[in-house]
Every structure is written in C-alpha cells, then in structure tokens.
C-alpha cells in the first residue's frame, strides 16, 4: 500500500513538472508569435535597428529551448518538488485564504476600502482559526478602521470609496 502511494505521489509530481514545462513552452511560443508580428512592422525600426520584435523573438527561442530541456530532464531524473497541498485540511485552508483575498479585491471597488477591509479581516481571521463571532467582529472592525485611518487619513492614500458610496 505504501509503495502504491509513493508511486501515485511520484506520478502526480511528474505530471506537475510536465505541465510546468508546457507552460514555459507556451510562454516561448507567445513571445515568438509576438516577435514575428513586431519584426514585420517596418515603422518600428526607425528608432533602433534591433527593434522591439527581435529581442522578444530571441527570448521566445530561449524559453522554448529551456522548456524542452526541463521537460526532458525531469522525465529522465524525476521531479524534486512536492505536491502542492500536503493534505485535505491544508488544501481547504489555502483555497479559503485565496478566495478571501479574491473576494476582498472584488469588494473594494464596490463597497469601498473601509467596509471591504472589515469584511476581509472578519473572513481571514475565521479562516486562520479564530472562531468566535464576537471576537472576530470586534477585531475586524478595529483593525479595519485602524488601517483606514492610518493609510487614508495619515498617509493620504486615496482608496476607492465604492459604487455604493459615490
């Protein structure tokens, strides 16, 4: 059973390495296509002989070569990375934290920085392990207001006020 788990882990890890290699190759291909488009534009060579296209084309070639080397070397030697998420609990925690941050980014332009921050701190404190509604509420309001006063009033940073409060 232990051997099967080990083999399954290795397959997952090697698959991840293959995907990484593909992403690098895709980046290289993007650079080559963009490079060809820019090289073809004669107007761009007025300012400098090399132009903006040749550099990015060359970079694309480098990425493709490195991507191929990476894929081939990891197929031969195996990958040395870990699985992204060690266990189910850690996985849920990470997804939750990323989701909370995404929700925060989404809310700021809608309800404004202050309210969005209060909501953010409430959610993030819950996710990291503070499970008291009252304590979380008090802390999130306190920290949110402190951040707002410090950054908006003291440092004069202009945050979005939100569509709701415009």
């Amino acid at each position, binding site marked *: 059973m232990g051997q099967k788990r080990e083999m399954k882990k290795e397959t997952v890890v090697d698959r991840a390495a293959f995907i990484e290699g593909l992403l690098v190759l895709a*980046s290289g291909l993007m650079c080559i296509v963009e490079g060809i488009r820019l090289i073809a534009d004669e107007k761009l060579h007025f300012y*400098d*002989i090399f132009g*903006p296209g040749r550099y990015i084309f060359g970079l694309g070639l480098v990425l493709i070569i490195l991507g191929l080397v990476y894929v081939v070397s990891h197929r031969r030697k195996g990958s040395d990375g870990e699985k*992204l998420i060690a266990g189910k609990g850690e996985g849920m925690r990470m997804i939750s*934290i990323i989701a909370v*941050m995404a929700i925060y980014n989404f809310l700021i332009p809608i309800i404004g920085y202050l309210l969005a921050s209060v909501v953010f701190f409430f959610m*993030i404190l819950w996710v990291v392990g*503070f499970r008291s509604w009252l304590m979380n509420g008090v802390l999130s309001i306190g920290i949110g207001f402190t951040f707002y006063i410090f950054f908006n009033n003291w440092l004069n940073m202009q945050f979005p006020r939100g569509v709701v409060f415009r």
Partner: protein
Amino acid sequence: MDLINGMVNLFQPNYLFFSFVGCMLGTLVGVLPGLSPSSAIAILLPLTLYMDPTGSIIMLAAIYYGGMYGGSTTSILVNIPGEPASVVTCLDGFQMTRQGKGGQALWIAAVGSFIAGTIGAVGISFIGPEVAKYALKFGPPEYFGILLLSMTMIVTFSGKSIIKGLVAGAVGMFISTVGMDSLTGTPRLSFGIIGIMRGIGLIPVMIGLFGIGEMFASIEAGAQEIYKGKLGKMMPRGADLKNGLLASIRGSILGFIIGLLPGMNPSLTPFFSYDLEKRISRHPEKFGTGAIEGVGGPEATNNATAQAGFIPMMALGIPTGPSLAVIMAALMLHGLQPGPTLFLQQKEFVWTVVASMYLGNVMLLIFNLPLVGIWARISLVPYKVLCPIILGISVVGAYAPRNTMFDVWVALVFGILGFIMRKRKWPIAPLVLGFILGDLFEGALRQSLSIGIGSPKIFFQRPIPAIFILLTALSVIAMWKFRRRIPKGELEEN
C-alpha cells in the same frame, strides 16, 4: 568631508526615527522565520512613496542589514534560521545553546555583526565614490557587459536545479517585456487590455512573490517549535572571546570583498567564512559541535556582504541580491537613478544614507544584546496572528503606487505563483532578478547595437564590455565548480 556632512544631516529627528524604526523592523523580520527582509522591504516599499526619499531609503536599508542581526537569534536558540543568511549559524550556534552557552553565541553574533557593519560602512565611504567615478565612463555597451555579468546571479540563486533557475530567470525577463516597449512605445503582449498596456508593475510582483506568497507558504507549513532552554552567561571569556573576535574580523573582511561581486549575497558568503574558519582552525573537529568561530565568522560575513552590496547597487545600478533589488526599485520610484550620477549629483542623499549605516550598526548592537530574550519570544508569535495584518498591508502596498485595482490582482496572482514556486522547489530570486534586470538588459543591448549599426562586434571592440563578457564566462565556470563542492542538501535557493 562628504561623510561628515552626511553625519550632520543625519541628526534630524525624522531621519533618526526612520533609522530606529528600520533597525527594529529589520531585527523583528530577521527573528521571524518565514518573513525575510526582502518580503518586508517589498511590502513596506509602497508606503515609503509617501515619505521623504532619504528617510525611506534609510529605513529600508536598516531593515536589510538589521535582518542580518535578527536572523541569528532563532538560528542559535531554536535551530531555525530566521532568514537565509543565518543558515550556517545553526551549525554551531544551536550546539552552543545545548551546552548552555546560548548567551555567548548571541553575544558574539551581535558583536561580530557590529564589527562587520562598521567595516562595511567604512568601505562604502571610501570605495563607493571611486567606483562611481570610474563608472561615469560607461556607455550602453559597458552597461550591457555589467548586466550580462549580473545575469550570472541567476545561476547563483538557482539552488539545486540550474535549469529551474534559468527558466525562472527567462520567465522574469518575459514578464518584463509585457506592456509598452521603453524605446519605441509599442505595446507588447498586451492583447489590447489597457491595464496590461501599462506594464506589469514591479511592486505588485514583489509583494506577490515575497509577501503574499511567503504568507501562504508559512500558513500552510504550520506551527513552530518552542524553545525552553536557558541562555547562560552573555559574554565569552578568554580563548573563546579572542577566537570569536578574530573570526569576526576575518569574516568581515572576507564578506566585504566578496560582497562587491555580483551574485555574492549574504545567504551565500557565510559558507565561505565557515569553510575558511574550519580550514585555518587548530581544532577543525570542533566545528559542528559548538565552535564559537563557526558563529562569529559567518555572522560577520553576512553583515559585511550586506553592506558591501550597496556599492554596486548605488554606484553601478547592479543589485547583488533580491533585497538590494527591491531597495534599488525604491530608489527608482523616488526618482533617484542608481548609477554613477547618484554619487555625484545626489551627494547629500548618498552620504546621509551611508552615515545612517554607522549609526544603524550602533543601534542594532544596543537593541540586540539586552533585548535578546524579548526577540526570542517574538519569534514564537503564531502566523495566524501576523497573517491578516501582513496580507492587509500587502493589498495596500500593491494598490498604492498606481492607484489601480489591477495591481492588487497582479499581486494576488503572483502571490499564488510564489506559493506554487515554493512548494514545487522553483527558485524565486532568479525570476525577480530577470524581471528587474530584463528591461535594463534589453535597453542596453538595443542601444549598443544601434551604436554599432547592428553589429555585435561593438561589445568586443571596447575593452570594458569585452572584459565583462570574459568575466561572465569565468564567473559561470567558477560558480559551476563552487556548486559541485557544496553538499546538495544545502544547495537550496537561499
């Protein structure tokens, strides 16, 4: 004379305050495993945009070299390096703690760091202006040569896998091409999206990779060990005192000289010092069991290297490590162009910052020794308390420079990328270096080829670029041989 003017200028309440805050934050960051000086500098950088440029650089520089002081505390007490430069200190420092000599290890680490920091500040005072004067003769081909040599840092920071480092560096350069081309104004890889046309901001990338990504990884990693031992007497006596101080002086000189070279940063040079101390010691068998030279030497080396790195960064515009790359970004964001003109046209700024390093080292010695017990306890603060605050500051930091939510999303995306890279053992520093140097590298290359009417011979017709290209080749060979000597288990990125 310039240094004296700098000292006089430094003694203004706000500069003294920023130096103090930087030293405290640097020590705190150094003490906290999982939060590196480069993360702290990246997160705080956008906030400094609202401050006076001199004060902000004083603070950021103090965080950087202050981190070297703080990192030794957890290395010695709980065998967890507070930051990468203190990895070697664990070898003998923790053994000294187990023998009841933790206080002595902390003492020699602090005093050694002070000696090194002072020697480093003196070195900057005399060598920096000379390097700057020489660098005034540099044109695009010469800068191309320097940047090419700097690219060898990507190999240094690659850790176990050079191919991963090279890929990360190339991806960094790829990201730097997104947006408007700096020479022609042509949008590249923007797909017609206005937010992308402005380019991927340096600060959101830094905050994402170093700040948010590190927080994700630290939360996922879980709880820390708890130290329950005693520190014992603080100051060593007799032979231990003499050996520790001599090792510190040797480490300082070694760290400063090596620290001038691109690619040599505080996480790497302590290995050299440890190796040297072991070779010249009459009792090499003691190393690994609690030799005081194994603490004093490396700790002095990492500090001296940190100080020395400011010379190529300020005089040539070449950062020798991730933290200095972020500080260089801070300089540029404040409208101060790193390079020879900085020393010549911004004398008041440069010498005030250099003077602050003298004072900063004194402050750090004063804060670290008596307060070592408090710093040790702070290192046990759980991440679930720090995480919300740091993530909140990161969002503010990403938004502040350009006042656009696009940058906040970029920071989150790079935060996820930074987390994935850490888990998949991809080195992050090459990506950052590729991103920062990529634009400069492309500019120098294209301008040089324009001067040479399209022919690459221009790089060999001038002596300085030709020498740098040769040094690049030698550097790669030397690094290859050096990597083969280090045990693979220690060849992680940091």
